[in-house]
């Protein structure tokens, strides 16, 4: 089992497009009880990964409550970098 932050990145290594909620859904079975599984921590981890070029923004929309929902994805180079660290 990978640490949570690496499991988050692992979600993107199949080339899929995911929002934070999508990532949480895919990881809920193994990581749902983690304290760092909260929305804010997950958003923070995704944004830090994006600012370091491991994932990129695909598209976004603003929800009725003002929350900016972002979908991310990784291209082949990014997937190679992620895999070089977590495999």
């Amino acid at each position, binding site marked *: *089992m*990978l*640490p*949570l*932050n*690496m499991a988050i*990145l692992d979600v993107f290594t199949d080339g899929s497009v995911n929002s934070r909620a999508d990532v949480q859904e895919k990881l809920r079975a193994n990581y749902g009880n*983690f*304290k*760092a599984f909260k929305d804010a921590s997950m958003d923070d*981890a995704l*944004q*830090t*990964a994006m*600012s*370091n*070029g*491991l994932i990129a923004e695909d598209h*976004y*929309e*603003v929800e009725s409550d*003002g929350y*900016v929902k*972002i979908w991310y994805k990784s291209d082949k180079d990014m997937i190679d970098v*992620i895999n*070089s*660290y*977590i495999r």
Partner: protein
Amino acid sequence: MSNNAATNAVAAKEARDKSYRKKGIMIALLSGFLYGGYTAFMTQGMATGVWGDLYGGTGIAAGMSAFAAVYTLSALGAAVNDLCSGVWSIIYGAIIGRIGDVGRTLKTKPGRILIVAAIIGGPLASTAYVIGLQMAGSIIVPIAALNACIGAIIGRFLYGQKLSVGMVAGILICLAAAILIGSSSMTGAEINGEAILGMVAAFGAALGWGIEGAVGGYACCIADYECAIIIRQVTSGLVNGVVLVSILSVMGGDGIGNGFKWLGAALTDTPSLWMFFVAGMFASFSFKFWYKGAAMCGAALGMGCNGTYAFWGPFWCFIVIGLGFGVDGYAIPWQGWVGAAVMVGGILLLAISQDKASREA
């Protein structure tokens, strides 16, 4: 989506990105501020209780070599601080539910990178810094302050992070400010072979801290920084306490037994230990924010903001040791205040230049 709705969405997204950048800069600045608290409490801890015997060569330290009084005791102080910090980090990590992930992180490549970064930036760089100070005097302080420049260069070439002309100028202004702050305590050193070796050692320290900041920071975009700090402080504490103190005790002719005797005495000395524990708490937050700031802002801006420790160190020493414990000699000279103002300008330039470089990318 109407034009109005699209404009609002773009504004909301920009506000979110700006908020993230502000948070990163605040965390990086906080790392420098808290480093001052760590410096002050560790300095006072090393002047209290059993440390009086250790530095005075009396009691358990009777017969201590001159070498040990300089080098082994420095490593001992760092070991006690980092071990206290490691214990605090584990307690805090348990409270916020990270202990399981620490074990899992240790089995991964980023975990191994964090261990190596901790050894390079902890025991190795700190010892190189002390050696530099001893051989060349405080003239080496600005050389060691080059660590932010080195971190920025490593971040640029190893991880492709942005480094524009404006950012380089910002780093150089911060470096000049650090030199100005350090200049008030500089002693004139005769430039001879030994002094040059001391400067080389100081550059080694800058290199070690630069590597740790850039590499450790990048590792924290893959690993959780709350796990990273536990790995960092426990590694540094154990390597300092077990390996480095042993090596230095042998080199000084004091024997490994004495090294461990002094370590045991320092770790059970209540009057100084609480100060080391407070210093360790500051160190834990300072170092994890250093990593986190570099992960959020990039090594250049993150380490530039962290460089404010050059001001916050003397500032905290003045507040805690000077005012709190009533020890003379900790007032901040004018160079400290002017240097702090110059540093704010350098960080502003660094942040604005990085923002501009990001938008142009």
